């Protein structure tokens, strides 16, 4: 539960991972991977966020309810982003720009 004690060693490893990922994402920004550019940047950010949530915030050892709160917040954010985006994405379809 919330009382779980994480050792400084784990925290140090996570810190190192976060710094390495930050350097990676900056380095990647100077390369052009075409369509993958955005995916790489967001993917690295999601990984970093996951490390912070799971270890720094003890999400890994949280109660079922805590995990549900994390999952729920993420899912609802996706609802908001994706459904709104779908409107803009599909606006050109009437003019024959449908992607399928």
């Amino acid at each position, binding site marked *: 539960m919330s009382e779980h004690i994480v050792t400084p060693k784990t925290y140090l490893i996570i810190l190192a991972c976060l710094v390495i990922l930050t350097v990676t994402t900056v380095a990647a920004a100077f390369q052009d991977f075409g369509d993958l550019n955005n995916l790489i940047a967001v993917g690295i950010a999601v990984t970093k966020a996951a490390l912070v949530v799971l270890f720094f915030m003890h999400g890994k050892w949280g109660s079922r309810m805590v995990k549900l709160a994390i999952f729920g917040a993420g899912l609802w954010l996706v*609802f908001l982003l994706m*459904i*709104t985006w*779908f*409107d803009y*994405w*599909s606006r050109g379809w*009437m003019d024959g720009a449908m992607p399928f």
Partner: protein
Amino acid sequence: MTRTLAELKSKANYLNVAFGAKSWLLTKDHKRIAILYLISVTTFFLVGGIFAGVIRLELMTPAGDLVQPDVYNRMFTMHGIIMIFFFLIPAIPAVLGNFILPLMLGAKDLAFPRINLASWYVYMAGGILGVYSLIQGGVDTGWTFYVPFSTTYSNTGVTLVAIAAFIVGFSSIMTALNFIVTTHRMRAPGLTWFRLPLMVWALYATSVIIMLATPVLAITLVMLALERSLHIGIFDPALGGDPVLFQHLFWFYSHPAVYIMILPAMGVISELIAAFARKRIFGYSFVAFSSMAIAVLGFLVWGHHMFVSGQSIYAGTVFSILTMLVAIPSAVKVFNWTATLYQGAVSYQTPMLYALGFIGLFTIGGLTGIFLGTMGLDTHVHDTYFVVAHFHYVMVGGTIMGYLGGLHYWWPKISGRLYPEFWAKLSALLVFVGFNLTFFPQFIVGYLGMPRRYHAYPPEFQVLNVLSTAGATILGVGYLLPVIYLVWSMRYGRKAPANPWGAVGLEWETGSPPPQYNFHETPVVDHEAYDYHHEAEKPKVA
């Protein structure tokens, strides 16, 4: 004269434990905070009602002869803003929920009593700012604050009202946070999730919606206020911004807000139907899960407010189909309430009258919602009185009927007094008749093409509008009566026993009014909710 300790203990309750303004204004007792909320939301209800009165008076005649057009715009805007943000959203959760949730859970208080008190102060801060902006001239954008009118063209105090709505939003977030955590962590021993009263399920689902939807409105109002006051244009078409994005963000909150208003009322109705039909709610778990289903599905349909906004028709189609899905859990509830009545020992006391009224009116409101969720029909009746009638059937015919029913049902518990049954039945009847007379003609006049938000209209619509105004008068009397006789009953009403309705539920096992910490001993629960069958078998104790 000396009294025994036990006698003293039985006399002490949350109302007489301390006296004076300070004991109320600094209280951390959820029951007293509920009373503070009761007084505040009733005040705002009356203010919002006055605006409705002006609107109906103006619409008695086709010509715009009572108020100027810009005054009329402010009237319907302030009516909407006050009724939605300051009355309907806090009404059932913050008054009835605050009072009854810990009692239903067998808890001594909510999880965070200080946050609970803070929520009332935040509510009042928003409310006072709202009233202040009213004195400053109000606002004329409609409660929806659509850009670019609200950011660029309106000459009224949009920023102030937006900030007031922002602040009040945080008060409901605080209440919701408290309810969620309390329901998880403060249940009495033996009170498992499927032994909870359906009111608790409904309040829980409502709280989830509040937590996930309100912050989106908050940040949207911040962007609106920044754009208006600092001229940095996030929704400004001149910079390539999109006003439709504002509508997306606004309705991401404001559609679920409809469920914030109606779900707690549905919870109340489940309690009333079970208590006055003397039966366990038919299909308990279906009703419980339908609340959660509404909470989730309610987030996926906001675009049905935007069919004519320039939204892509493909998005519109998806929203339209998803809207049909929300009808399913709502219909499950109505079906199960009706099925509960079947072969029940139904008695027609005031709360039950409101509950039966709710079922009928909500069904009409819900079904017309399906009309409006259909893209083709909505294009025809969009922004007409058909829409106005629809959402008043849901919010007034649904939420306020539920609120009044619940208030009567729990009034003996809240005040320790019985209300006068004759006057209460009379007012329930007046509300039902007045309501239908007010809003049913609006379906017709809207379908014939009368647009909403205009102070004048073609003369052929006058008969229906006069009927509507006449109904509003009756409705007004119906709402004023409870204010009078409930206040009267606090002094002159008969003393209420612990369980005046012979209902099942933890809240009826403690005194009326309850002691300061709700229960002298933490109750232990070993049976399901609405255990009327089991109750009937028990030997009667004189």
